[in-house]
C-alpha cells in the first residue's frame, strides 16, 4: 500500500520527517520517488522535532519518533484540502524498527492530509519487556560528561561527608577559596 510505504519511510528517517514538517512538503519514499505532504507550513517547526524523545540524537538513526504526541499540529491553522497525491485520512502503523534503545514502532494519524498525531506503540528493552517512553536513565559514556568537569562550580554534591572526609574534599577547597 502506497501510504504505508510513505509512512515507512517517515519512520525510517526522522530527519526527513522533520524536514518534511518544516518545509511542509516533500517526503522521499523508500523507492526513491517523492511525494508532497500538504503539511501546514504554519505549524510551529519545533513541534515536529520531538525534542522530548529518547535522547537518541547521537545515533542519527531516526529513533526520535519515540516522543508521544509532540507532533500534533496546532488546530485552527489554515489547512488546505489534501493534495491529489496526499495520503488518505486514517491511522497508519509503521514497521517495528530496531534501535540501540530497543524496538520502536509508532502509529501516525492523518486527517485532512496532515499528520495530526504520532503515537508510540512499542518500545521494548533488551529483555523484550515493553517500556514507556519516559524520563528513564540511559547509559552514557564518560566522555559525554567530560566537558562539564571543567566548568566553574560553587558547590559539590557527594555522598555524605564525614567531617574528616570534608577536610580533603573539593568542597573544602571551595569554602576556603570563598567562591
Amino acid at each position, binding site marked *: 500500500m502506497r501510504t504505508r510505504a510513505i509512512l515507512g519511510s517517515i519512520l525510517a528517517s526522522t530527519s526527513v520527517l522533520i524536514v518534511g514538517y518544516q518545509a511542509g512538503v516533500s517526503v522521499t519514499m523508500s523507492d526513491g520517488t517523492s511525494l508532497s505532504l500538504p503539511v501546514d507550513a504554519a505549524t510551529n517547526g519545533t513541534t515536529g522535532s520531538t525534542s*522530548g524523545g*529518547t*535522547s537518541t540524537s547521537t545515533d542519527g538513526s531516526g529513533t526520535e519518533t519515540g516522543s508521544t504526541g509532540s507532533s500534533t499540529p496546532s488546530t485552527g491553522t489554515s489547512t488546505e484540502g489534501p493534495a491529489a497525491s496526499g495520503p488518505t485520512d486514517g491511522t497508519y502503523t509503521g514497521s517495528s524498527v530496531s534501535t540501540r534503545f530497543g524496538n520502536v514502532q509508532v502509529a501516525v494519524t492523518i486527517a485532512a492530509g496532515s499528520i495530526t498525531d504520532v503515537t508510540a506503540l512499542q518500545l521494548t528493552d533488551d529483555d523484550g519487556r515493553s*517500556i*514507556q517512553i*519516559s*524520563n*528513564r*536513565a*540511559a*547509559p*552514557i*559514556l*564518560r566522555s*559525554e*560528561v567530560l*566537558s*562539564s*568537569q*571543567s*566548568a*566553574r*562550580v*560553587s*558547590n*559539590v*554534591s*557527594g*555522598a*555524605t*561527608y*564525614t*567531617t574528616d*572526609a*570534608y577536610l*580533603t*574534599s*573539593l*568542597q*573544602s577547597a*571551595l*569554602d576556603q577559596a*570563598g*567562591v
Partner: protein
Amino acid sequence: MRRAFSTMGTMASIALPDAWASEITELQRIFRAIDERYSLYLPDSELSMIASGRTLLADASATLLASYARALEWRSATGGNFSPHRPDGTIDLNGIVKAEAIEQAGEYLTAVGCPQWSVNVGGDILVSPTGGATPATASAAPLVPRVMRAGIAEPLSPTELLCSLKLRHPRRAIATSGSAQRGDHIWRAGSTGPVSFIQVSVVANDIVTADVLATTIVAGGEEVLDEVTDRWDVDVITVDRSGALRTTPGLLRALSPTA
C-alpha cells in the same frame, strides 16, 4: 560570602550575600536544634531517649512525630527501599533529618528575605529560587537570577569532579547518596547483596525528595531506578560498580557547560 561549619556529623557550607552574613548565627542554631533532637550519637537527644526506651514514642514531641510520619510516608511511597528503621528496629531519622534541616534553613532565609543563597550540608545542596548566592553586598540591588553550577564528586576519587550541572529554579535541589563514603546509612531492603550503584545523585525541586530518592535508588538498585524516574519528576545520574554512568534526559541537558 561563604561560611563553613561543622554540624550534624558533617559540614555545612552556606553562601549568602555579604549583607546577610549575620544570618549564619541563626542557621547554626537551626542545625544545632535539629541535631540535638535527632542525633543518635548524643545520648540525651530525644531520638536517643526513644531508641533506648527511656521515652515512649507516644510521648515524643510533635516535631519528632512529624518527621517520623514524613519518613514513614516515604517508606510507603518507595516500597520500603527508604526506611526510617534500622534493621534492628531502631528508629533512625538520619535519612530525612539532614534534608529537613536544609529545607528549614532555606525556608528561614526566604522568610527573612535573603535574596540569593545556597545551603550545602554534607554534599546535599539547595539553592534559592533566584540561584546561587551573589557576592554583591547590596541586598536591595536588583537581582538577576543566577544559574548555579553544582559539581558532583567522583565516587572513587572524591577530590575529583565526576561532572557538573546547572541548578536552576525549579530544579533547586541535588542530593547524592552512595556507598563511597558512608554507605552504612543505607540499608538494603530485604537483601544483603552488593549495591548495583555506588553513587546516585538526584536533582529535584525540593531537597527532601532529592535526598530520599537518592537513598532509595542506592538501596533498591536498577529496578528501583526505573520506578523512581517513572513516578517522580526528578533528574538522576548513577555510577555503577564498574564506573559506568546512566543519566535521565533532563540531567544530560543540565550537564551542558553553556549557561
